[in-house]
C-alpha cells in the first residue's frame, strides 16, 4: 500500500509539474507584450515597464519559471489586474456557489445515470434498453447552454416556477439558494448523465455473465438481491472512474452554465477574465481546476480499494 501510494503520488507530482509548465507556456504565447495588453492602449511606457517588473516579465524565462513554481508552492497565484486583489481570494469567494452547482449536477447525473444504466443492463435487448440507449445518446448531444436557455424560457420566465437568473439576495438562506441552483444543475447534469448510463450498462452487462452471479441465482436469491448485492457491487469500479471524470467535466461545464444563468461563481469569474484579458485569473483558474482534477482522479483510485476488497495496493 505504501509503495503504491508513494508511486502514485510521485506520478501525480510529475503531472502537476507538467500542468504548471503548460500553464506557464500558455501565459507566455500571448502575441505582443502581456503587460501592454493588460493595461490597454492608454498606458504610458513607464506604466508598462512598471507592470513588467512587478510581474517579473523582465527576467530571463528560466528565472521566471523558477519564481513561478515558487509562487505556486506558496499558494500565491498573483493579483487579478481587473479586481485588484489576489486571484486565490477571488476564486475562494466564488468557490462556494460553484461547489454547490457541481455537487448538485453530479448528484443529478449519478441519480439518473446509475439506476437507468442498471435497469437497461438487466432488461438487455428489450424495448426499454433500446430506448435508454437512444435517450442517453440524445442527452450526450445536447449543448448544455441551449438546454439552459430553453429551461429558463419555459420553466422560469413563462411558468415562473424558478428564478430566471442569479443566486438570490446576499443574505438568502439555503432553501432560496438551492431554488436558484435547480435549473442550472439540471442543465449541467442531464447531458452528463449519458456517459454514466452507458458505462453502468456496459459494466453491469460484463458482470451479469459471471459465474458467481449464476451461483447466486442458483442458490435461490431474489433477482434484485443478486443484481444489487452481487452484480452491482462488482460493476462499480468502472462506474466510479467515469463518475470521477464526470466531476471534472462538470467543473468545466460550470463555466458555460454559470454564464447562461448569470450565477456569480468561478466559471463566471473565468469568462469575465477571458473577455477582459485578466491573465493572472486565467492562469490561476487553470492551475486550481486542473489540480482538482488530478486530486479527484487520485481519490477515485484510492476508493477502488474501499469498494473492492480484492484491490490491494
Amino acid at each position: 500500500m505504501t509503495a503504491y501510494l508513494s508511486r502514485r503520488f510521485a506520478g501525480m507530482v510529475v503531472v502537476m509539474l507538467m500542468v504548471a509548465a503548460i500553464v506557464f507556456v500558455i501565459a507566455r504565447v500571448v502575441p505582443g507584450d502581456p503587460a501592454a495588453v493588460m493595461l490597454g492602449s492608454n498606458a504610458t511606457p513607464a506604466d508598462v515597464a512598471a507592470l513588467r517588473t512587478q510581474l517579473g516579465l523582465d527576467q530571463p524565462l528560466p528565472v521566471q519559471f523558477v519564481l513561478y513554481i515558487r509562487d505556486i508552492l506558496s499558494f500565491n497565484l498573483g493579483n487579478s489586474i481587473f479586481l485588484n486583489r489576489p486571484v486565490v481570494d477571488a476564486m475562494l469567494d466564488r468557490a462556494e456557489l460553484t461547489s454547490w452547482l457541481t455537487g448538485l449536477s453530479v448528484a443529478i447525473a449519478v441519480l439518473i445515470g446509475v439506476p437507468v444504466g442498471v435497469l437497461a443492463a438487466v432488461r438487455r435487448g428489450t424495448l426499454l434498453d433500446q430506448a435508454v440507449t437512444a435517450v442517453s445518446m440524445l442527452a450526450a448531444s445536447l449543448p448544455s447552454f441551449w438546454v439552459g436557455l430553453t429551461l429558463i424560457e419555459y420553466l422560469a420566465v413563462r411558468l415562473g416556477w424558478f428564478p430566471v437568473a442569479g443566486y438570490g439576495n446576499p443574505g438568502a438562506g439555503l432553501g432560496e439558494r438551492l431554488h436558484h441552483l435547480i435549473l442550472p444543475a439540471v442543465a449541467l447534469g442531464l447531458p452528463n448523465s449519458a456517459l454514466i448510463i452507458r458505462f453502468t450498462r456496459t459494466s453491469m452487462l460484463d458482470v451479469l455473465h459471471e459465474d458467481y452471479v449464476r451461483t447466486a441465482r442458483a442458490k435461490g436469491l431474489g433477482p434484485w438481491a443478486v443484481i444489487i448485492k452481487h452484480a452491482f457491487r462488482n460493476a462499480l469500479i468502472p462506474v466510479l472512474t467515469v463518475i470521477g471524470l464526470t466531476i471534472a467535466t462538470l467543473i468545466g461545464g460550470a463555466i458555460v452554465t454559470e454564464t447562461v444563468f448569470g450565477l456569480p461563481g468561478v466559471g463566471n469569474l473565468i469568462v469575465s477574465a477571458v473577455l477582459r484579458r485578466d491573465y493572472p485569473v486565467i492562469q490561476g483558474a487553470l492551475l486550481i481546476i486542473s489540480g482538482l482534477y488530478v486530486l479527484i482522479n487520485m481519490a477515485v483510485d484510492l476508493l477502488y480499494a474501499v469498494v473492492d476488497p480484492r484491490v490491494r495496493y
Partner: protein
Amino acid sequence: MTKPRSPGALLIARLLRRRIVVASLAVIALIVGAAILAPWVAPYGPTKMDIVHRLKPPVSLHWFGTDDFGRDVLTRTLYGARVSLSVGLMVVVLASLLGTALGLFAGYIRKLDAALMRFTDALMAFPDILLAIALLAGLGPSLFNVVLALGIVYTPRVARVVRGATLVLRELQFVEAAEALGASDARIMLVHLLPNLVSPLIVQGTFIFAYAILTEAALSFLGAGVPPTTPTWGNMIAGSQQYMNQADWLIMAPGLAIVLTVLSLQIVGDGLRDALDPKLQRLM
C-alpha cells in the same frame, strides 16, 4: 464459394447492416450537402435584412422565423453549418496529425513513452472548454485560432488511442521482420505502423468531430470563439438570448442543427467502432 471481399467492403457492409447508422449517415450527408449548397438552396441571402419583418415567428415564407434584423433563420442556419462543420473537420485533421505523431512516438520509441504520456495526462487535466478559452484568451478570438485551440485540446485523445494501438502492433511479427531487415524507426512508423492505425483514427475522428462542434458552439456562445459577425450555430444562439421572450424560435433551428449533427456523428462513431471491433465480429 463467395468471392472474398476486401476489408473495406466488409466494413461498409457491416456498418450498413444497422438501420440507425444508415439513417445517421443520411442525416450527415443531408446537412453537409445543405452546407455546401447553401448559396443555392437557402431561400434568402445570409445578411439580407428585412427590418419590417423582424422577429417574425415561423411561417411559410420563413420556415424558422426571422431574427432581430429580419434575417431568415433557416438561411443563417444553413450558412452557419458551413462554418461549424468546417471548424469541426479542421479540428479533426489537426488533432489527428498532432495526436498521431505524439502517439506513434510514445508507443514505438520506448524512451519517450513515459514523458509523452505524462504530457498528455497533464493536457487532459484541463476541462476541454477551460483549456480552449485560456488558449483563445491569449491568441484572440478568430476562426483560425478556434481551430488551433480545439485541435490542441483534442490531441491527447488521439494520442492515447494511437499509442495503445501502436503498443499492440509493435509486438507483431511484421514489425519484428521490418526491424530485422534494418528498417529505420521513421520507416517502421510511417510505412508499417501508420496504415494499421487508420481504423482507430477514423473512429476517434468521428467522435472528435462531434465534440468539436459542441465545444465550438459553447465557445462562440461565451464570446470567446468565432467573432459574432460570422454566423455559426453557437453565435446564432448567443445572439438570440436577449430576444427569447419575444422570439423563442430563434434558438430552435441552430440548436436542433447542433443536436442532429452531433447525435448522428456519435451514432456513426459507435457503429464504426462496433464494425471494427474484432471481439464483436465473432458474436455477430
